């Protein structure tokens, strides 16, 4: 049995266009169309696809933050109907509470999940793990983007979810910070062995980190292909980048993605 089973998931949104005073046209736009896949326990799956396709929508449905129109998501065989305690989400815009310190921000998730064990000890452990020691009493605006995302990561890891959902978590970081964070995430993944579903628009990032890569088509997003990443773990991210397997995969993924991007252009989207 898969850890996460996504079954025939479909979702469309109503978009309202104003046409003159008091007149509006409601049109339905399909975001996700009949998507089915599974993620094994401890597996790292990346979701990629052309910009504006339903990557984030798909992840939000797995997180229970968005209700699918059809289909379902099951975790350990159990159907998801809202935020599940087995899952935790890391957001691109991080979403720290600006009036709370690093420590208080990390504690937040633990309080909401009613963890009965020692909250302070758990917070300390994950502050250590993500390299935030010494920054406990800082406020978010005093930290760089990379440090802020470490807080976001610690907040999610501290509740010890079985599945970590990450929505372009490094998308807004500069190239250097991004590389460091990718390396740390890879290390954390091999240490904690959590199941991770990772949305990104960066193909190299997807190859470096993942076991499997799910390529989506342009809207409405269907599964274009599921690609296995045959690179041994633990990976030295720097060495991996110069390997021939990496180069081939990148070419393959890019060709596949480009095809979708050109299709979107042709339709005029």
């Amino acid at each position, binding site marked *: 049995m898969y850890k996460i089973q996504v079954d025939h998931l479909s979702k469309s949104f109503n978009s309202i266009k104003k046409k003159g005073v008091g007149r509006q046209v409601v049109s339905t736009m399909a975001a996700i169309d009949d998507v089915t896949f599974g993620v094994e326990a401890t597996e790292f799956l990346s979701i990629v696809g052309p910009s504006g396709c339903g990557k984030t929508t798909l992840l939000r449905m797995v*997180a*229970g*933050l968005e209700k699918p129109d059809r289909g379902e998501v099951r975790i350990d065989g159990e159907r998801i109907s809202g*935020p599940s*305690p087995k*899952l*935790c*989400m890391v*957001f691109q*815009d991080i*979403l720290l*509470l*600006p*009036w709370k310190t690093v420590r208080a921000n990390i504690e*937040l*998730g633990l*309080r*909401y*999940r009613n963890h009965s064990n020692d909250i302070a000890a758990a917070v300390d452990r994950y502050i250590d793990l993500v390299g935030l020691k010494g920054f406990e009493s800082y*406020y*978010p*605006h*005093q930290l760089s983007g990379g440090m802020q995302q470490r807080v976001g990561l610690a907040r999610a890891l501290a*509740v010890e979810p079985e599945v970590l959902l990450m929505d372009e978590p490094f998308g807004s970081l500069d190239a250097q910070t991004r590389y460091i964070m990718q390396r740390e995430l890879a290390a954390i993944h091999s240490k904690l062995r959590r199941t991770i579903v990772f949305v990104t628009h960066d193909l190299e990032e997807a190859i470096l980190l993942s076991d499997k890569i799910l390529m989506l088509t342009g809207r409405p997003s269907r599964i274009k292909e599921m690609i296995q990443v045959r690179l041994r773990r633990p990976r030295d991210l720097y060495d991996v980048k110069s390997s021939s397997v990496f180069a081939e995969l990148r070419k393959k993924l890019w060709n596949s993605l480009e095809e979708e991007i050109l299709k979107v252009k042709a339709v005029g989207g």
Partner: protein
Amino acid sequence: MAGMAREPVVLYIISVVVFLAVWQAVSMSTTPLFLPSPGEVAAAVPSLVGSGALTDATLSTLYVFLAGLALGVAAGVPLGIVLGRFQVLNGVTYIPVTTFYSMPFVALIPLLVIWTGLGVETKAIIVFIASVFPILINTQAGIQQTNHRLLEMATSFGATEQQKLMDISIPFSVPYIMSGIRIAVGRAIVAAIVAELTTSISGLGGLLSYYGNEFATAKMMVPLVMVAFISLALTYAVKKMEERLGRWRLT
């Protein structure tokens, strides 16, 4: 963290000196009845302080002001939270709240006098009516404008509605509440003086009216300066409080 901008104290002092100089110059071109000089106003201070009139009046005005404002905060913040939280109430209360906020509270004074008489309570109620609506409206706006992504983050961690309100919406609204209080303080001091002038004569407003009727312009200017000082001090205090509580916004 970068500190707060240093107050330009020297510029403040210069502005006061220039103001006094202009005042002095204008007063020399006219009679003390029309505009007494700063010196003549200063000379009138001892008699008002000596008789205890100034202190009594100041305390009386401050009492009315603080009682009314405290009621305004005590009612405005919780009501604003409730109205901000429940969209339905928002629709029901929109017209009355907007009406009360935008109509001149002075127009309500005759009715309030009929209902509650001429005592201190009436004055405090006038201050309350002047101050409660800006606080309520700003609190409501803060709750409604709370970053919905932050609320969603909390939802994803399984936070209850109450936790989201206490941990996210209310702290997010603090800067809004503080701007509401800043507006309310300005309105409240106006309301306190107007109440003292239009109901039973008392406080600094009462002194203004009394010396004005006597044509004792220099003496009349003393409570006026006092009102100016109080307003300045309150504005400064609220500004400092706003900076302190809204520090996380200064990014």
